[in-house]
């Protein structure tokens, strides 16, 4: 009896803690959304976030996409040749990049780059009493720090994903035409003919959701930071973990929503 109770408590406590954490994040998300619509809106902070999230992520997004597109083309060619289906390379690269790899890889790169830097910055502000100072200067941290970052990510990450999709397809195109002997015109034509509008829309929609998650997790864990340098370190680590896991989970949910018929 006692043993069983201990056993159940061992399982129960982390489950409850996990559910409570989800609840807190959900409340935080709802609060952030409600603040987006209400003035004041800090436009300058928003523009700064757009630049740091969007513009400065371009190199990492481009490199990730081009290598992935190239590798994908090689794999599909090698795999396809086992049953003489090498010709499908353009179509499968396009679908794989646009539907899955583009959004997921860009999302994860944003989690690594943006979530971590948001969390570290806000956690440092928390630890050095800058958040308290904001409040005493009649400025709501949610409006001044969270809303500009979340909104910027919500708008900019889909664009990054779109760009990543294109560059990924180009990576496949380069490998396909330079190395695998595809005719450039046919490769392009096959890609464009094969892709459908829902492929592209779903890709961008995933980007918006992943951007929202990435920025929100950075802000949330930053604001939750404990004391000292250790608090900052922990907040940063947890934020990236949470963002990456949530992005992958959301990707599964979105894929099944969009494509399971």
């Amino acid at each position, binding site marked *: 009896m006692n043993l069983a109770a201990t056993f159940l408590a061992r399982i129960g406590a982390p489950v409850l803690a996990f559910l409570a954490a989800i609840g807190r994040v959900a409340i935080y998300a709802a609060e952030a959304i409600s603040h987006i619509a209400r003035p*004041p809106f800090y436009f300058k902070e928003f523009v700064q976030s757009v630049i740091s999230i969007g513009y400065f992520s371009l190199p990492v997004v481009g490199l990730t996409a081009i290598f992935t597109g190239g590798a994908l083309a090689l794999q599909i060619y090698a795999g396809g040749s086992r049953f003489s289906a090498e010709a499908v390379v353009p179509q499968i690269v396009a679908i794989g990049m646009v539907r899955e790899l583009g959004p997921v890889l860009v999302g994860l790169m944003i989690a690594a780059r943006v979530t971590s830097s948001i969390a570290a910055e806000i956690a440092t*502000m928390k630890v050095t*009493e800058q958040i308290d*100072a904001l*409040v*005493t*200067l*009649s*400025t709501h941290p949610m409006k001044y720090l969270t809303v500009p970052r979340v909104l910027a990510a919500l708008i900019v990450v889909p664009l990054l994903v779109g760009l990543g999709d294109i560059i990924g397809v180009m990576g496949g195109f380069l490998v396909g035409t330079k190395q695998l002997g595809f005719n450039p015109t046919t490769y392009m034509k096959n890609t464009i003919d094969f892709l459908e509008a829902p492929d592209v829309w779903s890709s961008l929609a995933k980007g918006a959701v992943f951007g929202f998650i990435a920025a929100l997790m950075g802000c949330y864990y930053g604001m939750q930071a404990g004391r000292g340098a250790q608090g900052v370190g922990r907040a940063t680590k947890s934020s990236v973990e949470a963002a990456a896991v949530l992005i992958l989970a959301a990707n599964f949910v979105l894929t099944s929503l969009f494509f399971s018929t």
Partner: protein
Amino acid sequence: MIELRDLHKSFGDKKVLQGVNLTIPKGESMVVIGGSGTGKSVLIKCILGLVPPSSGVILLDGEDVAKAERDAFLARFGMLFQGGALFDSLSVWQNVSFRLLRGSLKRPKAEAREIAIDKLRRVGLSPEVADLYPAELSGGMQKRVGLARAIAAEPEIIFFDEPTTGLDPIMAGVINELIREIVTEMGATAMTITHDMTSVRAIADKVAMLHDGMIQWTGPVGEMDNSGDPYLDQFIHGRAEGPIESVR
């Protein structure tokens, strides 16, 4: 006027404030002294609502602070944080006139900058400092920028958490005079935390000593030296021997 009634605050099991009763009359300068770690900073943060009190009542002009409209309430206060708490993404002048660049007190940029430079001069900093970033300043300079920010919007009530620690004696004198001026000329209510007894004598109308989570002694600064309170005596004379344990 600020009144604290039976204010308690614990962090987990750790009891920091255990029934603080204190009245700070309008237009007066109250100085809070007390050993390191007794909860002086926590006390100020409770009044500002940055830390929720565990129990007790805080009244501002007779009204319960917990029920007040937050923005209007905070607009009346200025605060110098113990660590400065400057925004390191903003330049010095933008820090000082943070309040004047947005929200209800917003004014043109040029005017806000003028005011910032004026306030910087009052805390003994030259206009060249205005365009630097907080990370480029020494600790004492950061403290003074924090002070300039606290007084920039000319609030009615100002809290100073250790305004002179980390400053040289001359600069400390300048800051003491400034705080005194703000109270006598602008009619502001001030609450200052300090360990510096010279500061206490220069700034205070009234003194309160926090010990063991309660106000051990409070009274006019003139009565501080012959209070007959052994705790206060030990503290103001900096004696290692006495009722206050030296290991806390």
